[in-house]
């Protein structure tokens, strides 16, 4: 039985690696199959969203601190890169890295101030941050160009538009891979376990010895840095910055929506969310032109996600599937008499004095332990 579950696990891992390889191949071949430059640029936008959503998830998903103001770091990264290139004559990609480093440093005092409060207070602070940055960047026209915007020269001036989009498509993919790698490393690490404990019960985590503030701050800074990288890369690609689009609560809302929709507990959840929401946004822009209906759509979608699928669309769909097609499996507490007797015997053997028979549960009160025992 042991070798059976081992080989099953190996097949599962192999299948997942295969799916990953296929998916990567599909993504990387997209520029080749895109029918026109517009579709290609839409692809770039979606990969950009995927980067942003995954970056947001580094703090939002792990710690449960939901920031609606992540647009602040996007804007700082974008303007940082743009200003370094235009005013300090720094080469494009060097400017990108320096801007991200500056944001990382700024994120420390911002995080120290914001992370002192929890829950809804934290969300409000994050909104306040992006609003005040919007105010500053709009008003400080002499430095930032204000509402006239800032033009960022392209890093590869010789390229025609389609090639320009293609190059940046791959650059964004590389950035996405980096962000996903960071998420993956944190997810399976002790640091990640501590972060998840903070999400579940912050006081309890602290009582168990986790230095919660330091952990939260670290995740916050990493998240802000990657978001800034995404913003800076966008500045280099798009070339035209305006405070109202860079320091945007709406973009921050998109990040949250994408991560929540796709599922915050999964590596590719935000990517999935970015695909769905990004595509929907492009569709709305095409069908309904410049009207504000995409706002309504975002609002409705976010509302639906919050009300009905706060864990993401995949668990919600799986739940629905289980309820319709496998009604027996939906109930967790079902245990057959034989299994119950076996559990009681096992427990009595482990601890002299009998089982606990605690309120509301049989000793070992769920059906899952049987499979857990079988695994051993």
């Amino acid at each position, binding site marked *: 039985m042991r070798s059976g579950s081992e080989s099953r696990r190996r097949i599962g891992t192999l299948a997942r690696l295969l799916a990953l390889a296929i998916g990567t191949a599909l993504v990387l071949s997209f520029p080749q199959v895109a029918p026109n430059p517009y579709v290609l640029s839409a692809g770039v936008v979606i990969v950009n969203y995927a980067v942003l959503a995954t970056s947001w998830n580094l703090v939002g998903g792990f710690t449960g601190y939901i920031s609606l103001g992540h647009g602040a770091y996007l804007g700082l990264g974008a303007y940082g890169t743009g200003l370094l290139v235009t005013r300090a004559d720094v080469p494009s990609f060097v400017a990108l890295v320096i801007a991200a480093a500056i944001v990382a440093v700024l994120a420390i005092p911002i995080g120290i101030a914001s992370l002192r409060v929890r829950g*809804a207070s934290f969300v409000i602070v994050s909104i306040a941050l992006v609003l005040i940055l919007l105010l500053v960047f709009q008003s400080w026209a002499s430095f930032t160009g204000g509402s006239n915007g800032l033009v960022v020269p392209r890093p590869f001036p010789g390229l025609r538009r389609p090639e320009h989009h293609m190059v940046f498509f791959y650059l964004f993919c590389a950035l996405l891979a980096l962000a996903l790698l960071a998420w993956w490393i944190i997810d399976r690490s002790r640091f990640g376990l501590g972060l998840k404990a903070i999400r579940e019960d912050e006081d309890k985590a602290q009582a168990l010895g986790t230095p919660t503030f330091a952990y939260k701050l670290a995740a916050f800074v990493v998240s802000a840095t990657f978001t800034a990288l995404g913003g800076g890369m966008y500045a280099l690609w798009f070339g035209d910055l305006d405070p109202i689009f860079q320091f945007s609560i709406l973009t921050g809302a998109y990040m949250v929506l994408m991560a929540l929709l796709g599922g915050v507990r999964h590596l590719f959840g935000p990517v999935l969310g970015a695909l769905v929401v990004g595509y929907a946004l492009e569709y709305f822009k095409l069908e309904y032109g410049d009207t504000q*209906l995409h706002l309504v*759509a975002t*609002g409705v979608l976010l509302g639906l996600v919050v009300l009905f699928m706060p864990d993401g669309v995949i668990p919600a769909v799986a739940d629905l599937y289980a309820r319709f097609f496998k009604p027996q499996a939906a109930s967790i507490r079902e245990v057959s008499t034989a299994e119950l007797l076996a559990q009681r015997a096992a427990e009595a053997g482990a601890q002299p004095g009998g089982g606990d028979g605690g309120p509301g549960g049989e000793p070992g009160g769920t059906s899952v332990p049987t499979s857990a025992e079988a695994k051993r």
Partner: protein
Amino acid sequence: MISGSLLFQSLILGVLLGGLYALLAAGLTLYFGVMRVVMIAHSAFLILAAYLAWYFHRQTGLDPLLSMVVTAPLFFVIGVAMQRLLITRLRPATRTMMSVLLTFAIAIGIEGLLGYVFTGTHRRTQLSYSGASFELFGARVAVVKLIAFGLAAAALGGLFLLLRKTTFGQALRATMQHKEAAELAGIDTDRVAGYGFGIGLATAAVGGTAMALDVTIYPSLHWHWIGPLMAIIVVGGLGSVPGAAIAAMLLGVTQSLLQLPLGTTWAQTIFYLALFATLVFRPQGFFGGRLAQRF
């Protein structure tokens, strides 16, 4: 050098503005008090009411203040419906956090609808008395601002009377202070919470109508208000409605006074500065008293 009369003028304007802020902050406090819900859509409803008042005036030629006869009860019903149908669906454990996201979704939904129906063109209500003002100890006070303040003061006064003198008000205060105890005392807290929500949204109707007299409105205007409003309730602390009102007055006057040296845009930063200062030094707010809570 800023002249004394200019200073006095700014002070008066600040008081008038503070009154309006106080009414709006009171509404926000109600939502949080009854259901621990942070209602980011409050300012969006404010703008919606302003649009409705403007539209009413444009279509009928009547004074936009009359639109309140329809909008206030309408918003009350919407408020009750929101609480019963949406808020109660949220899991209690994460309700405060999720309410932020949910009401945020409602806010951008409203903004989108307004933009779709009325387009992004800036709108302004022109009335026969729009330009009128009168003298008050050397300060020029616009009549519309005074009316707005009067409305806000009346509404706040009405709210105060409701909370203090009526049985329902008592039930509402009990629910806000200690839900379980109120339930034990036989109060139907769910219904009270629903009405509390409705009242909160009705104050948005009043405030929005008052705004329509004097402010140029456009769909994304609500973002200019939600920042200051959130700052006010954090600074005031989620205690009694008076706590938020005090903070509103204080910050409104300060903002108005700061407009003299700094200009309108930079004067707005006072709210964010106050917000961050509160979080650093006294996260539970300054004026809330014993009832103040951290979100």
